[in-house]
């Protein structure tokens, strides 16, 4: 009894804060030794930034995209205006890339073509991603008979070579930007669907999904809130690879005469026109081909960089 009152008295009277010094040597040092915790995405961004090749490629791509948006706006020439007094001119100060057989400035046509080609490529990549994720997600999540039928359907579509699909669909729809996008996307989403389905299969048995289900989460919630974010990195990599593929397909279509209708320009149209005049006017192939190659190169290198940055197995 008396002891207790004693301590209380000491507490109030003698023990003021200035009698103590804080001893935080033990845990502060331990804290300092670990680096600040990084989320997965900031970690990936840190690794991507450190990859010089991938960064340079991204910057070049950004420049190409900006040029495609702004160059045709400020150019003194129109991409579809003929000038019969300056046909097939070699590159000069006036026409940096020269002119084609109708006297059109190739420089402005290249950037106008970049608009069309890149727009096709991006839309195809987004379409592939969306359809593939929805389809693959449903098939993988529900499994069983639904999965079996859905994947059979994929096999069926994939059994006709992609090139033939594109050709057939363009014939049905008549050449144009939208038909080309649809034709390339018809087979394009299958790879993404298979990829995401595989990921869903792996992830749906994991503990965090089980926990979520125990708490009463619905299928849609689980697919979009738990499975999709965890499968994001292979999806991004695959979408980055879909872009150069679509640029190639568009160029192929133009080369066999099913490309964008004239006088519109796309890289495929420019390169295939140039290829036909390679013997007499090589520069007409050189510039569009160079642009295609640089863009493809950058997309591929950036894709490799993304893969290295996002693949969890590469994490240290």
């Amino acid at each position, binding site marked *: 009894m008396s002891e207790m009152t004693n301590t209380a008295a000491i507490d109030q009277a003698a023990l003021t804060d200035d009698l103590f010094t804080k001893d935080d040597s033990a845990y502060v040092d331990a804290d300092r030794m670990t680096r600040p915790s990084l989320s997965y995405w900031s970690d990936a961004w840190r690794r991507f930034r450190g990859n010089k090749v991938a960064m340079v490629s991204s910057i070049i791509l950004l420049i190409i995209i900006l040029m495609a948006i702004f160059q045709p706006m400020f150019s003194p020439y129109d991409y579809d205006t003929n000038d019969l007094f300056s046909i097939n001119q070699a590159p000069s100060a006036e026409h940096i890339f020269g002119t084609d057989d109708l006297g059109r400035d190739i420089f402005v046509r290249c950037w106008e073509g970049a608009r069309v080609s890149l727009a096709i490529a991006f839309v195809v990549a987004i379409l592939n991603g969306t359809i593939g994720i929805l389809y693959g997600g449903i098939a993988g999540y529900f499994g069983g008979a639904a999965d079996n039928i859905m994947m059979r359907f994929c*096999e*069926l579509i994939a*059994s*006709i*070579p992609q*090139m*033939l699909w594109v*050709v*057939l*669909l363009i*014939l*049905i729809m008549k050449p144009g930007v939208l038909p080309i996008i649809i034709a390339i996307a018809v087979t394009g989403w299958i790879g993404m669907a298979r990829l995401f389905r595989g990921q869903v299969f792996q992830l749906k048995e994991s503990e965090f999904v089980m926990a979520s289900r125990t708490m009463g989460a619905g299928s849609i919630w689980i697919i979009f809130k738990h499975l999709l974010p965890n499968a994001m990195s292979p999806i991004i990599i695959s979408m980055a690879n879909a872009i*150069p593929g679509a640029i*190639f397909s568009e*160029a*192929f279509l133009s*080369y*066999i*005469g*099913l490309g964008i209708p004239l006088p519109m320009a796309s890289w495929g149209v420019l*390169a*295939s026109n140039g*290829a036909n005049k*390679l*013997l007499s006017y*090589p520069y007409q*192939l050189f510039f569009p*081909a160079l642009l*295609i*190659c640089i863009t*493809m*190169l950058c997309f*591929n*290198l950036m894709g490799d960089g993304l893969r290295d940055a996002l693949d969890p197995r590469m994490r240290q």
Partner: protein
Amino acid sequence: MLRYTVKRFLSMLLTLFLVATATFFLMHAIPGQPFEISRETPESVREALEKEYGLDQPVWKQYLTYMNNLLHGEFGTSMKYKGQTVAGEVTGGMPVSAIIGFGGVLVGCIIGSVLGSIAALKNKGVVDYVVIILAILGVSVPNFVFGSLIQRYFAVEWSLFPIQGWRGWTYAILPIAAAAFTNIAYYARMLRTSMLDTMGQDYIYTAKSKGLTQGEIVRRHMLRNSFLPLVTSLGPMCAGVLTGNFVIEKIFNIPGIGQSMILAIQNSDYTMIMGLTIIFSFISIICYFIVDIVYGLVDPRIRVAK
């Protein structure tokens, strides 16, 4: 294995049937009449033409006739050139396309896998960098650009090879080189990744700790395992071979079936397009089937999993 084969065979037949059906209805979805191209065609002539091709029948009847013809190996006749049949085009063009295609795959596969293997074994060496650069170039340069370039330099400027046409074996060299270019890059990259992957496996460490020499490890443990992905890729590759390489045949003006297809497209020769599409799809489906069986033979895990 027998059960697996039979199962795959039946599913192949189903796919063939569905593809033929899909192609038929796709072609019927093309807007416009097949014979309304020239405005001056009198009504009676058009009707006679439609009767000749059975287009006056109801669609379901056309479909049955068409399926029946397919079963008897009749793939149709051209709408534009009298007497030209799909089967004739294919038998004429296929050998030529096959020479270019198989040549391209064979050359590409051999050079590519040798380069890829060396690159992986001498990781970060000179060959490795060459392979990396080659692999990136291979996917960055459209094949018609590469084909046009080698045609210009090797045939036109330096006159080492014939420019175009098909009149002897020298005419095959440049097209095969053009076809091989992408394949070399593709296989080099694939083999490099797959070899590097195999190298990290535990059984390679076991082999090393058993005291096997480097050469023996490569020969007995690595090659066999690293070449598996190559077998799968050969399916679509072979299908591509037989269906011809549209672009390369066009550049070098080679009378293969790719050219027939391009011509049919440019002429809107629908029966020809339909027949060729079906043949192309059949070939690719059969190639996938064969590869699946071969893959099952090479890798026992596949049979168990299915």
